[in-house]
């Protein structure tokens, strides 16, 4: 069947996106490696009996390793799309599919509403238990509302 030339343009754009994703993956890998290295150096620098680290070294070691593993998976997957044109085309189609995009946007919107309600519930409950937690949650709600307002202004200016 004859294919619309519009979609070959879409596929070229997808190849560029894959390139950017691989680059982002490499940067994330580097970030993870730095976190692991930092954690190892920090552990060595600590006195043998000291526990001043408070688990910070372990935290950075685990998150760094997780970042490295996640970026390797992402790079591998993206490379597969570039090496296998059939697979890449299917992925490109799925990513550009308007229904899939709408589903993605609605998922973000609904999870945002749910998050807001959860935070509000958290403030109500934590107020009785620990005011510090309640204040932190209130600050998160305020930041969330502020971001919502900023994006509303920015997006409505563009549309």
């Amino acid at each position, binding site marked *: *069947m004859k*294919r*619309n030339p*519009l*979609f070959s343009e*879409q596929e070229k754009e997808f190849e560029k996106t894959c390139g950017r994703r691989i680059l982002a993956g490499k940067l994330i890998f580097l970030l993870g490696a730095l976190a692991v290295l930092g954690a190892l150096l920090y552990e060595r620098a600590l006195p043998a009996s000291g526990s001043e680290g408070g688990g910070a070294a372990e935290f950075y070691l685990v998150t760094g390793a997780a970042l490295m593993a996640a970026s390797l998976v992402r790079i591998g997957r993206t490379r597969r799309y570039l090496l296998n044109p059939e697979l890449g085309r299917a992925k490109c*189609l*799925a990513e*550009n*599919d*308007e*229904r*899939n995009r*709408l589903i993605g946007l609605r998922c973000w919107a609904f999870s945002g509403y749910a998050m807001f309600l959860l935070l509000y519930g958290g403030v109500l409950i934590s107020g009785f238990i620990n005011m510090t937690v309640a204040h932190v949650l209130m600050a998160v709600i305020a930041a969330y509302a502020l971001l919502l307002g900023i994006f509303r202004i920015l997006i409505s200016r563009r549309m």
Partner: protein
Amino acid sequence: MENRIQELRKEKRIRQEDLAEAVGVTRQTIISLENGRYNASLLLAHRIAAYFGMKIEDIFLFDEEE
């Protein structure tokens, strides 16, 4: 909004996969369109109409009361 995609597709013996690929969406989107669970964007409606060589209003039946 109702549409005649399924009717036209079957009339012309076109598979959902082929229509999906020709208009740049997934097969699942064609299924949703045919079932009336999803309304196509103007761009997709235009592509589908062009694919069948018809006008948008001949495929997508707009009901003002909906």
